[in-house]
């Protein structure tokens, strides 16, 4: 196990997962001295009946839901947050419940900043301290979740707000809230979450605490992805949702890796989703690290990705390579449903160069000059990274 000279790990979020876990929300809120939450969500969650499930779960609690604000859209704006804050104050609410994907959670986190600091100006939060006193905040992930719900980050109008305190107090993962989605919609957030967890434990600064969360996240995703995509059991869908939720905690405790930086930059430049770019780049980033970095890829990665049998059967020196191959297998196995090369996304080559240039400066010291472009080139053709060790 890798242990750096110095590390820190923070997790504020308690995960409550399983059958009828929504029914625990009134109890959990009361234990945090809160009785009247504002539910913040989007139209899709209302249309799918998710809000109704929550209201039914509230039955017999004797508590009141302040209001259900369903005005969140895919792009979270300050205006939306301000509207929610006015509603929160008008109804005398004292806590927040977010139902839905990352946009709902981002809006809820920003709302929490506004109402806890009794202000209407989000721009005043230039830099956030890690010791704020915020309202109780519960996240209910749905099938739209990307993992960022449990993270320390909120993005409003393209502006990033980050603090340890922005993590939700509780993430309630109930199978009733995980509705069936299209195959691509199921695969992409899961692969992005996996990419982030894999990247976190292949960084030099990886620490044992974050590793344990990352391995749990990777294992849950790898074990349940195929079953969940093929309309598998409730258990597999729940396992996948847990893996995705844990990846947000992992991501918050790890430095940004070259893979996620490239995926972010590529998504901005091409208009493809971040999830798709992260999924395509994941195996190639790992392959590059395996062959071209001093520390290579840790052999421990094979355990969560491929399972105990393959891990034990492999020689210690081979485990890193086999781990990378297992990741290739998983991503290529999804080629029926999603594109797995940049060529299939019709991205012109000149964009690869400009993307690599934008990312290069931050990572050149760690991965050498030309590393970013090499990853993109191999992801373009879907070929293995050339050079380095085998």
């Amino acid at each position, binding site marked *: 196990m890798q242990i750096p000279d110095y590390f820190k790990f923070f997790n504020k979020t308690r995960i409550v997962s399983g059958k*009828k876990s929504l*029914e625990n929300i009134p*109890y959990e809120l009361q234990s945090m001295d809160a009785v009247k939450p504002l539910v913040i969500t989007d139209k899709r969650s209302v249309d799918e009946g998710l809000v109704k499930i929550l*209201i039914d779960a509230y*039955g*017999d609690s004797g508590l*009141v839901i302040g209001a259900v604000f369903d005005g969140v859209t895919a792009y979270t704006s300050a205006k939306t947050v301000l509207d929610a804050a*006015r509603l929160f104050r008008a109804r005398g609410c004292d806590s927040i419940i977010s139902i839905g994907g990352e946009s709902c959670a981002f809006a809820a986190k920003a709302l929490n900043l506004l109402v806890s600091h009794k202000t209407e100006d989000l721009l005043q939060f230039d830099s956030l301290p890690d010791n704020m006193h915020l309202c109780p905040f519960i996240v209910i992930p749905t099938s739209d979740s990307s993992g960022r719900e449990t993270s320390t980050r909120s993005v409003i109008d393209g502006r990033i707000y980050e603090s340890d305190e922005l993590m939700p107090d509780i993430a309630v993962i109930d199978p009733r809230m995980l509705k069936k989605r299209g195959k691509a919609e199921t695969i992409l957030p899961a692969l992005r979450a996996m990419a982030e967890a894999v990247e976190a434990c292949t960084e030099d600064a990886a620490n044992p605490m974050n590793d344990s969360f990352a391995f749990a996240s990777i294992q849950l995703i790898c074990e349940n992805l195929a079953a969940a995509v093929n309309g598998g059991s409730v258990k597999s869908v729940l396992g996948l949702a847990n893996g995705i939720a844990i990846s947000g905690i992992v991501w918050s405790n790890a430095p940004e890796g070259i893979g996620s930086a490239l995926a972010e930059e590529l998504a901005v430049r091409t208009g493809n989703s971040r999830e798709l770019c992260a999924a395509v780049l994941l195996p190639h980033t790992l392959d590059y690290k395996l062959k071209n970095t001093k520390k290579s890829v840790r052999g421990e990665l094979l355990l969560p990705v491929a399972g105990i049998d393959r891990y034990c059967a492999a020689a210690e020196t081979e485990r890193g390579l086999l781990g990378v191959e297992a990741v290739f297998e998983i991503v290529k196995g999804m080629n029926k449903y999603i594109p797995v090369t940049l060529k299939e996304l019709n991205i012109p080559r000149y964009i690869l160069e400009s993307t690599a240039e934008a990312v290069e400066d931050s990572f050149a010291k760690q991965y050498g000059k030309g590393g970013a472009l090499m990853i993109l080139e191999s992801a373009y053709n879907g070929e293995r990274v050339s050079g380095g060790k085998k």
Partner: protein
Amino acid sequence: MNINKYPEIKSGGKLIKKIYVAVMLWIVGRAIQAASRVDREVKEEFGRLSDDFMMHLHVLPSGPGMIVGKDKNGKVKYMGWNPKGKKITLDMKVKNIEGAMLMFTFQESTCVASANNRLAVSGNVPDTMAFIRILNIVETYLLPKIITSFAVKRYPKWSQMSPMRKYAGRVLVYVRTFTF
């Protein structure tokens, strides 16, 4: 923004579920009292508990519940549902009515319910464990094997509870539960 578009939502009631759980708690409470007179093991378990033992098992936030405890003479008694004026030494709370339904429809055993974080307990851990053991014995008397095996961690073997003890005890517990 029109605030009236977003009304307050009051939580509804779950009357039928509450009635079902109330009836089950009444039967179990009465059966514990009966078993404490009929079954040697239950008698011994209660004997090891303090003289002021009083257990309140209830569903949050507003019931139903049951109270079982020792009276002045040290006899185990079912004492109804209202904790007012009673000195509770062991407070077992089921966090919500749905959790109670899972337990009392035997979809989850008491142990699994505890593991699934459906119960909150204030009191001594040894007292709680003793009470869970008593509950398991009482359920064995009250219910047929096929249902009890869902409700308890391990169904007692022949060597632990002979058929003679089980069937004779069952008759006596039922008679005492529903008569006096």
